[in-house]
Every structure is written in C-alpha cells, then in structure tokens.
C-alpha cells in the first residue's frame, strides 16, 4: 500500500537549516494573547454613546501558557469552549501574533510565516473549508501540489496512499458542495496533508461526524503519525478521539494551563467514584447500604461507589450476596473531564 520511500529523506521531511537540533519540535514559553473586545450595554443611550466612544475591554484568551512537544508525539489539547485552544493553535500555526511570550515550531517563530516553515506544517479546522466549493476536491489537491511544489511522482504516490487510507476514491471527482460533511472532512484532511507536513495542528477534526466516520478519521491520524513520525497537537470535544490517540494531554481553562501529563493521570486525579455492576438472581434486594444504586433491571444492579472504597465494597458484595457476575468500571471519560473543568472553574 505504501509507495513512498520513507527511508529516503525527501524535501518534505528534510529539516531545514533552521530546524531544531533538539527533539523539541514545539516549544511555548509564557505565551499570552489578549483581545480587545467592544463592549456595549443594552439601551438606546448606550447605543448613542457607542457612536462616539467605544469601550474596549481586554480579554485574556491565552494567559501564560508553557509546554513542549517532542517529535512524533500526539498531544490532546483539552478545555471547554472559549478556553483558548483555537487561539493557541492559531498562534502556533502563524495566524496570530501573541501579545507576549515565545513559541517555536520546528525552530521557526510561527508568526513570521516563513515559507520554509509553512511548507512543514498544516492546520485542519473542522469548521472551516479550504476546498474550492463548486468543483471536485481533486482540483484543490492539484493546486496544493503546485503551491507546495510537490514533485509529480511524489504527489501521485501520496495521493494514492491518502485515497486508500481515507477511502476517497469516488469522492475526488464529485463537486465539493455535493459531498456529505464526513466526506468533505476526509477530503479536507487529505488536502491539508498532501505536502506531508511534519507538524499537524488539528482543531476539532471530527466535529459533527457520525461515530463510524470519527473512528475512521482517528485511525487515519494514528496511521499518519506512525508512518511519518509527524507531531500532532489536536483539540477535540469527543473524548473518544483523545482516549484513542493521545497518551498525553494538555488542559487549559480560561486561557491558563491547568494540567500537562498523561491522560491516565488526569483520569486518576479526577475519578472520585467507580461503577460496580453485579448480576443477582432478582431485583428484590436493597443494595443502598453498599453504595448509590443507579439502576436495576432483571437482577442487574449498577452501583456508584467511592473510588477508595471499591475493593472493600466488592469484597462485601461477594461475601453477602449470591452474585452471578460482577464488573468494576471507571466512569465515562467525558464525566471525568467535565468534573475536572468544573472543579477548576474559578
């Protein structure tokens, strides 16, 4: 399936003179971004005052964020809406100037937007389109081929590979406007990766997609990272994306960095309860003395118990009751993350 010679470094993977010697591909130090937003109160008087004088309020979108990423890492960038994730991604891809702080990506200062930098990165925005709307995606691909100066032979093999991995086949020749959201997203991702970037910024790449399509995109990202050693920083509100792809997560809230470490550690830190599911012969038993009964159906009880008490309660349940089957589960990841955001909320 793979036709590209990965052992031979080509122009798409060769580090430029400015590329870092260290393995830190992405480095942020005290990065800040403050927006000035017009504020206007309700009412006619305020509207008239606003004609002559506009009150601008500073809003700290990103507030003193520092972290590093090594080559080939996939990091989940988490936070609720408005946390500053997209602003950070835009600064790292060169679309925004920071108010303060330092960032380097592949040894370049992103917002200088040097051509050698732009040729090595990509930004996929789940809610924005780069494909030319009225014509088939293959035309945008061809345009990107010349923009990124991809040699024809490499282009053909990369296109073939992306077509296979993302199952693009018949989609390439249909006008983009006639594609479904999922089909369009697959083409968007392919268009963004044709030049085989070393650093990939993904902003909600699976937003609005059905479960099957989300899974396909996820496995593609994992495959791309594995094959090309690309460094991937992604935001997603779907925890399944994060759990499947990211060993490490960076969490921000109100622009501030709250957690940087393994996903497992984050879950451990914010998991206060576990779920015990037991199968008894009947539903007549009162199990409230063991924990909070969440449900009972055909003798199948679901109990919520404190994490620290799990072992002791399980032991008691097995000793006291005629248990047919028993299962201990962590709470859903969404629940844990939601709890983390809530607890951190100032």
């Amino acid at each position: 399936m793979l036709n590209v010679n990965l052992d031979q470094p080509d122009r798409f993977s060769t580090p430029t003179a400015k590329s870092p010697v260290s393995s830190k591909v992405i480095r942020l130090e005290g990065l800040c971004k403050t927006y000035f937003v017009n504020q206007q109160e309700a009412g006619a008087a305020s509207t008239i005052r606003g004609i002559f004088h506009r009150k601008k309020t500073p809003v700290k979108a990103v507030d003193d964020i520092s972290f590093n990423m090594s080559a080939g890492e996939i990091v989940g960038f988490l936070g609720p809406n408005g946390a500053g994730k997209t602003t950070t991604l835009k600064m790292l891809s060169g679309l925004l100037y920071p108010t303060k702080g330092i960032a380097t990506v592949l040894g370049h200062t992103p917002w200088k937007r040097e051509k050698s930098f732009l040729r090595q990165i990509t930004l996929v925005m789940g809610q924005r389109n780069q494909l030319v709307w009225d014509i088939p995606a293959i035309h945008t691909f061809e345009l990107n081929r010349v923009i990124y100066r991809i040699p024809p032979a490499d282009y053909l093999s990369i296109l073939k590979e992306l077509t296979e991995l993302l199952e693009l086949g018949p989609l390439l020749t249909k006008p983009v406007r006639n594609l479904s959201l999922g089909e369009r997203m697959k083409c968007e991702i392919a268009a963004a990766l044709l030049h085989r970037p070393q650093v990939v910024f993904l902003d909600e790449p699976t937003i609005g997609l059905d479960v099957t399509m989300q899974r396909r995109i996820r496995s593609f990202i994992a495959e791309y990272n594995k094959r090309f050693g690309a460094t991937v920083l992604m935001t997603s509100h779907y925890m399944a994306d994060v759990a499947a792809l990211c060993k490490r997560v960076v969490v921000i809230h109100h622009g501030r960095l709250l957690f940087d470490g393994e996903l497992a550690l984050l879950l451990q830190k914010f998991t206060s309860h576990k779920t015990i599911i037991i199968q008894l012969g009947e539903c007549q038993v009162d199990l409230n003395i063991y924990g909070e009964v969440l449900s009972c159906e055909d003798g199948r009880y679901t109990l919520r118990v404190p994490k620290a008490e799990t072992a002791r309660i399980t032991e008691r349940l097995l000793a006291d009751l005629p248990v047919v089957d028993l299962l201990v589960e962590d709470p859903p990841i969404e629940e844990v993350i939601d709890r983390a955001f809530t607890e951190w909320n100032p």
Partner: protein
Amino acid sequence: MKDLVQLYLQQFKTTFTSMFQYRAALLIWMIGQVLEPLVYLIVWSTVSNGNGGSVGNYTTGAFVSYFVVLMLVNQFTYTWLMFDYEWRIREGIFSFALLKPVHPIHSDIADNLMTKAIQLPVLTVIAVILAFTFHPTLSLTPWVILLFIPALLLAFGVRFLLEWTLAQAAFWTTRVGSINQLYFFMLLLFSGQIAPLSLLPHSIQIAAKILPLYWTVGFPTELLLGKLTLSTVLTGIGIQIVWLIIALFLVRVIWRLGTRAYSAVGQ
C-alpha cells in the same frame, strides 16, 4: 519562476472549471455587465440626437464608439476583489491563504486573467452586435492599436493593484460595503464611465487626471478612439507606470500592516 508559472497554469484550470459550473449564471452576469454602458450609450445618443447630432466634441456615432470601447476596456480592467475579500475574511477562509507558502495575490491575478479570457470573446461578439445596431464612427490606425495594448495592460495592472489595496480594508473592518460603494461612485465619475471626461466640468477633469481612476478606464478608451495626440498618449502611459509603481508599493505596505492587524485580532 517556473513554480510561479505552474501555479498560474493550475489556477487558470481551477478558475476555468469553477466558472463553467454555473453556465447560466455566468451568462446572466455578463449581460448585466453590458447593460450599464448600454444605458449610458442610449442616454447620450438620445441627448446628442436631440441636440442636433452632437454634444461638445462628440457626435452621436462618437458616443456609440466611446461606450462600446469603454465596455470592453472596463471589462478587461474590472475586478471583484473588494467583494471577495470581505467574504474571505468574514468567513475565516483567508486563514487558509495565510497558511500557504505563496502570496495570495498570485491566485487572484491568475483568477482574473482566466475570467477575462473566458468573458472577452463573448463581450467582443456583443460589441460587434452593438456596433451594427448603433453605427459607431471609429477609424483605427496601426500606431493607436500598438499603443493601446500596453495602455490596456497597464490600466488592468493599476486597477487590479489599487482594488487589491482597497480590498484590504477588510482586515480592519469586516463591513467594507460602504468603502466599496464610495469607490464605485468615484470610479463612475472620474474614470469616464458615466460620460467622456471632456464633457464634464473642468474641475472634475483636473481631479480625474490627478486621481488614478481615469488612467484605468477613460484613458485607454480615448486612446483607441484616436482622441489623443501621440505626446498625450506617451505622457499617459508614463503616468500609468507611475501609478503602477505607487500601487505596488501600497499593496506591499498595506498587506504587511493588514496581515498584522488580522493576526492581532484573529477571525
């Protein structure tokens, strides 16, 4: 250079394919573009006939030839950048252009050139039909045709770069409709679109010669009609070159400031 040529060729193909996706809309749009000079043609021909066959130094036939040539020149130099730019920035599409290692002006130049290549044959046919219908008076000489070509290309260059500069206002305000409106009103008056410049008040004529707009439409039109002396034509081409240099400078400066403003605010 080779890469840039390839980029232009590919953009030509993309524009060509895009334009023919909506054939009926394309045709209607072209007819709409012809209607405006046609209205002026009919109005001025009527005024001229009512005035004994001429107004100022323009006979009825001269009016016809003026507006037919003006229609072609206007089409060749016209751009839709100011409307496009606002949309690109408002929708966040411009971010993708900034992520590419190529200046977005190249795509716009190629896009405009291909659009004109598609439209001009149709408009030339329309011009011939109008000529047969309204009987213009036009006598072309070889030196006029020879000088008309660079004057037309320079007119396109100046207008394209000026409009690209003005379109960048969208970096600071996403509601540039009012700026567009003001610009198109000035273009109508000072470029010679509403009437030949020599028929307008003296102060307007002076303002028109100082501003760049006349040099983007009225000047090449009058040149082809043989209304200008050789020295006026050569001076005019010189002025076009100066405006081209100024416009190039403006594009670069405003681009630098604009992208900085865009990057500071984000879309």
